[in-house]
């Protein structure tokens, strides 16, 4: 009766269904426990790290945690929802400056400064995001690029507030020296004090990872995926796409914002060129797509692997790693669009679950 050719025969026979495409839902329950175990182990190791490690190692780990925060938060809007954003550097810079200036003008202590940096970025992201998220993917990306650069110019020019190109110097953390007959408890307290920036970044990264798990396993995450898969259909099915996108964008902006503020305090000096540099966006994007965008583990794996590799192997040549990152982006887009996680899934090293 039908005149058009049917795309596929639609007899519903068991044997015709490809068994390998099935996800095995049974053991997915264990995945959650596996993540929890890994998280606890990592938390213990990382909390203990400054007690025994050299300052160099601690700083390196801080950098890894920083990139991890940037990549996981980038992944929510750009991986799950499919709206590639180039705004990371913008929010990193804005957060750095909000945090640094609050400290510079001695308005608050550092912890509130970090939170305020996050809050400020949230608000700005809403203001910027609502009009621009209406645009289609590539145009949104360009708009975010413009936003990041415009932020830099504004910070650079508004020197009465931001000290412009001179940058902002922040007081260096005064390290506590071990006293005589220091007890173990006192040693812990001293370590905690001396590495407070590290612990702040650790906390931030931990929250980002937890939130990634929540996104990846919840219906909210499904809504993001539906926007990526077919935004028109999603809207037609009743999903409030603008609301979902805007809140995801604003929520994700909090993290580079707070990371920027912690970074500012950690290095003690920031200027517009450094904190608004495109390299922050490049790192977020490269590590996430390398690891696998739209997955829980992808940005984490990518951030850890690439940051360690780039810091260790190429620290002699700071510009070489930009070359490597560029090459990685190209290679991933052309040959490995699903990233490392999809590669591992194809070879059955990682389970084929969307909860990965």
């Amino acid at each position, binding site marked *: 009766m039908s005149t058009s050719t049917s795309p596929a025969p639609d*007899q519903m026979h068991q044997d015709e269904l490809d068994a390998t495409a099935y996800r095995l839902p049974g053991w997915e329950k264990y995945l959650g426990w596996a993540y929890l175990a890994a998280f606890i182990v990592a938390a213990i190791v990382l909390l203990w790290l400054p007690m025994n490690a050299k300052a160099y190692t601690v700083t390196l780990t801080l950098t890894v945690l920083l990139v991890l925060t940037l990549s996981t938060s980038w992944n929510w809007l750009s991986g799950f929802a499919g709206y590639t954003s180039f705004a990371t550097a913008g929010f990193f810079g804005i957060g750095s400056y909000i945090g640094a200036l609050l400290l510079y003008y001695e308005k608050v202590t550092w912890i509130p400064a970090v939170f305020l940096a996050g809050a400020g970025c949230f608000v700005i992201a809403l203001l910027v995001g609502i009009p621009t998220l209406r645009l289609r993917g590539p145009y949104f990306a360009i708009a975010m690029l413009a936003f990041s650069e415009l932020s830099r110019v504004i910070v650079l020019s508004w020197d009465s507030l931001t000290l412009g190109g001179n940058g902002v110097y922040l007081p260096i953390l005064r390290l506590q020296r071990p006293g005589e007959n220091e007890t173990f408890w006192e040693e812990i307290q001293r370590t905690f004090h001396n590495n407070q920036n590290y612990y702040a970044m650790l906390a931030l990264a931990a929250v980002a990872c937890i939130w990634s798990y929540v996104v990846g396993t919840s219906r909210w995450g499904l809504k993001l995926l539906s926007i990526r898969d077919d935004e028109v*259909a999603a809207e037609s099915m009743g999903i409030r796409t603008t609301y979902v996108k805007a809140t995801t964008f604003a929520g994700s902006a909090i993290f580079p914002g707070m990371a920027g503020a912690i970074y500012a305090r950690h290095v003690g000096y920031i200027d517009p060129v450094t904190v608004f540099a495109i390299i922050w966006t490049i790192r977020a994007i490269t590590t996430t797509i390398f690891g696998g965008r739209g997955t829980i583990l992808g940005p984490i794996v990518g951030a850890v692997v690439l940051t360690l590799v780039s810091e260790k192997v190429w620290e002699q040549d700071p510009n070489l790693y930009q070359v490597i990152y560029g090459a990685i982006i190209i290679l991933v887009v052309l040959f490995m669009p699903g990233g490392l996680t999809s590669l591992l899934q194809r070879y059955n090293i990682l389970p084929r679950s969307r909860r990965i």
Partner: protein
Amino acid sequence: MSQSAVATDIILEVRNVSKRFGGIQAVNDASLGIERGKVTGVIGPNGSGKSTMFNLITGLETPDSGQIIYKGENIAGKAPHVINRMGMGRTFQLTRLFGTMTVLENLTVITTDSFQGAEELAEKLLANLGLTRLKNEYAANLSYGQQKLVEFLRLSMIESDLILLDEPFAGVNPVMEKKLLEQIDMWVKEGKTVLLTDHEMAIMMELCESIYVFDYGSVIAHGTPQEVRENPRVMEAYFGS
């Protein structure tokens, strides 16, 4: 020759709606009155404006002029998800499921009630059609007919009072067709209103209680299948004079 206007409940009224795309007048001063609880069909040659009309009703397009009154409210220009939440569901000509999600996820993502409740409802609906074993299959792996069925099921996930079906029988074999017709039957029994468009004339004539005929963006005929079949203008539109 149109049906005499008996005082029936009109759930959707399209009043003099027009839509132009660049140089093309896709919909030209069209008016429709869809009665609650009935199956109404829209037919017309390709390019006659049927799909655009659907898009205008469901909010994917905004009319240049005219009103679209749904349940007493003018919904012209409202966002698609708002219209959907008012109890209007639709399917698409080419199935638009979320490919990287499973069938179960495709069904549960759209509801707002609890995850638990959504999953239970979804499983029940799948069981009704004998599709339970597909529930964890990625939507992109389903056959075309299976996708069509799942799209239909999506409409049952939210309380839809008016269901728009865009060429539901295209490319579908007799077995699947029977299942789709059963589903439509069930909806009508539940008191829902169905508005559909398709090229399968035999089915449309059999299924619909009222038919609108489109040509070049305008409504050229309206009536029972019998009246429409005998209307010379309709023959002209489809076959030329």
